[in-house]
């Protein structure tokens, strides 16, 4: 089973990193979602592998048969935060598209005019005042 999970995680990570590296914000976002999923799975598997009893305390003690609840709790948090990040990234993508008419990171980099003033704004205003 371990080898299957390893290959599965590896495949999803490969796909997600490939998407990540593309020049389009939306594809990057899809890559991010996939990546998050794969990493969540990897963390859960680092806790324990195999079907066992869910971490629900019975009246009797669970003992060694219980799945590790700690990674589960952590991943649950990660899933929700991942959702928040996805939503935020999507809105930024949409905003970028509307503002600059493109979702290509190359074109976006050009759309942002480099603003490196020769002097600080403070000094400039002082010169004006003087």
């Amino acid at each position, binding site marked *: 089973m371990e080898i299957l999970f390893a290959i599965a995680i590896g495949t999803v990570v490969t796909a997600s990193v490939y998407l990540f590296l593309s020049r389009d914000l939306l594809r990057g976002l899809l890559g991010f979602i996939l990546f998050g999923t794969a990493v969540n799975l990897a963390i859960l598997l680092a806790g324990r*592998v195999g079907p066992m009893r869910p971490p629900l305390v019975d009246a009797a003690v669970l003992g060694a048969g219980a799945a590790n609840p700690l990674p589960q709790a952590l991943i649950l948090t990660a899933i929700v935060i991942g959702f928040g990040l996805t939503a935020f990234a999507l809105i930024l993508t949409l905003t970028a598209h509307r503002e600059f008419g493109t979702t290509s990171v190359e074109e976006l980099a050009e759309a*942002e005019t480099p603003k490196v003033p020769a002097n600080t704004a403070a000094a400039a205003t002082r010169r004006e005042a003087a």
Partner: protein
Amino acid sequence: MMSDESLLALVLALPFAGSLVVGFLPSNRHNLEAWLAGAIALAGLAIALALYPAVADGKAIRVAVEWLPTLGLDFTLRMDGFAWLFTVLVTGIGLLVVLYARYYMSPDDPVARFFAFLLGFMGAMLGIVLSGNLIQLVFFWELTSLSSFLLIGYWHHTAKARDGARMALTVTASGGLCLFVGVVIVGHIVGSYDLDRVLESGAAIRSHALYVPALVLILLGALTKSAQFPFHFWLPQAMAAPTPVSAYLHSATMVKAGVFLMVRLWPALGYTEAWFWIVGTAGLCTFVLGAYLAMFQQDLKGLLAYSTISHLGLITLLIGLDSPTGIVAAIFHMMNHATFKASLFMAAGIIDHETGTRDIRRLSGLLRLMPVTAGLAILAAASMAGVPLLNGFLSKEMFFAEAVAHHSSSAFDRVLPYLAALAAMFSVTYSLRFIHGAFFGPPPADLPRQPPPLPSWMAAPVALLVSACVLVGMFPAVTAGPFLDSAARGVLGAHIPTYSLAVWHGFNVPLLMSVVAMAGGALLYLALQRYLSSGIEGSPLLRRLDSQRIFDRIMIALTLRAGRIGLETAGTRRLQPQLRLILGVACAAALWPLLQLGMAAGPLAPSALDPALTLVWVVGAACAIAAAYQAKYHRFAALILTGGAGLVVCVTFAWLSAPDLALTQLLVEIVTTVLLLLGLRWLPKREEMVEADRHRTPRVLLRRAADLAIATVVGIGVAAIAYAVMTRPAPDSRASFFVERAYTEGGGTNVVNVILVDFRGFDTLGEIAVLGVVALTVYALLRRFRPAPDSIVSPEQQVRQNARAAAAGPRQPADALADSLLVPALVMRLLFPVIGMVAVYLFLRGHDLPGGGFVAGLTMSVAFILQYMAGGTRWVEARLIILPVRWIGVGLLLAALTGLGAWAFGYPFLTSHASHPTLPVVGKVPLASAILFDLGVFVLVVGATVLILIALAHQSIRTHRPTKPEPAPDHA
């Protein structure tokens, strides 16, 4: 009657409380704020005076409250004679400044803000002088820097105020950071941050290897704060502040914090060569340079600022001379300087207030126009010059005596008396210039406005301060003697040196030096007449050395040039190289330990392959790969395939006995997919993209091949690590701790949920706060967003749909939607209460069985989304009032209040309580306070999710331009 300890705490607490109250008063209640601020300062002063007997003979009052016991830190207040003296200065001059500001500030100024900042500063300053703990002292130290920043920048509409405030903050706060590091080193040497312990451990500190670094860092803090050379330049720029602020912060109190600290720590850090050279040299340079520059200022406040720098240099020099009598003289001069300089600043402010200018070139002959102010200012300036029978004379005599008496047989020692006399001469000159330039001479010709009658109370604070100058100057032993004595005892302990506070000491060298300084200063003033009347701004020798310009240059070099060079050499504006860099670093970080320790599969035997799950994962892997392959042109397909991979992971979670995760993952997948679908309609259509990408050059193919190679390497690496981890036995984690205590302490049987809402409740609170922030940000971004004119077209789908509707007959566009989804819409509508019930069910069982606030919240929001899908935005919002922002607020409040509730029962934040009461009929039910917390999570998740989705959905019901670009009203 309150005890001394609680009174002491009250002194510190009052200004902060007052600051809060005043800050919330309406800003047009001019008098109320001034009254309140004045009452607080008066109360502080009264308490301080009442506490005097307790500190009179070198004793100290201490209050300690546990602060961070794990670090051995207590919140300690400590008042000895020295701290008492400063408390009286801070509250007393504070009172006068409030009274003065009441008349000085224009009715148009937002005075609530002014008095709130002023009181905040007063509290911070009292915090410095009353701290019995060095860390705490640094905290209040930085607080004074911050409030000084706010006060200098009070008239923030002027560039001068903004620049001055920023410069003061940059210099003093960086000094504060140095001080902090120095204090940490001292704490490390002593083993405690307690001031008493530190003062006792002088010998240990001085002999330690880290003594010099600690000393240099602490002195950097003190010298920047007290505007000592070469950090003096911020003080003249800070004169952009309203004059009451200059009188209070930049003459009497804040700039004294540096010299205060040096005197305070002198028993622990002084008595060394390093102390003598650093402090003494800085003081001497500042003393002479400040006095020299002050002579050539054309602005009254500028003159006073440089003279303040010079006098602070004098105090620093006295401290640097490393003798107990020097310390006594320094303390005495701090008192005297505070009184005459604050009154001079106030007088300059009155002149400005009345005539509209502070420029010495335009002022003249004001003696006739404002005789009271003139008389008071002349007395104060005479005290600044060191004229006998005024308090400035006394401490200057003590200083001369020190300068002459000091003997270390170095060159420094030999030139010291001459330089002291020279600087004293300069100070006579600039005092004369202040008096003569403003008050004597012909009647003023070109004043911006004719002086209106002075508000009678405006000169009262000046009169009080000047009478103090005169009284101390004439009867020093009676008026100032006891207080100086107790202050000296506070610093030096029982062994205070013999000194004499008398006006007349007979004919001696100090008196001779005074006479020389007086005569020389007067002659110098006459000699300089021609240069000064030429109206040149600045001094003959150092005019070109504009410290502000140097500061600007350095700041630009540090912040802008260095950043740009770094960007040019190591950076790129393109995202992809950056991403590759990040991946490369991640790979290297993962490979490094592998190369060091070797990599091998663990000892655990692999478990048998489950054929069903294998099959599921074949689908999952295919989905992931296909998503990556399709994403370029088939966004929709890629999205669905990504969802497919997510679902496979969801099944895997279930297989791995993680039911909560499976549930959450499933719901998040649903919501994410809906969200992305809503988003997709605003992105370019597929066909356009294909057109744009027709020309696939070999270069592009090569780049994608490189991307694929990197991705494969990363994937294999992650797979290998995952495999290596899985084949090793799981380390002993905290898991058993949670499993054992979930029911007994958390009152729930679902360990995951108990961890989330109870054991790790604080994390969850942070997490839902993040979710709320994200939702609000999304909302704000979409609401405030004004689309570019060429992109406000309706989405393709809407256009087609409306076209179809129009073709089918005369009816409303929205009807088309209702028709095409008639049956599903009906089902969805009927499902609303059912899904609601499921959500409630999932929520209620959450503590014991899979479910909980997150899952239930997502379920509930799915119910809402379905209604939007079925009926359309307008239909739903005509029938349901959904206020997601309030849901977010209520949820966060509920969760936080549940946590706070634990305090009411004397437990730490977020402690939960569980019990199993027996209800009639229902029987025994589990009830934990954590369910309230979980309810907060539920409410917030519903609010946040619905808000995000609705905000996005609302984009399509905005009025749009028609698809064909015709001249239509621009409706953004």
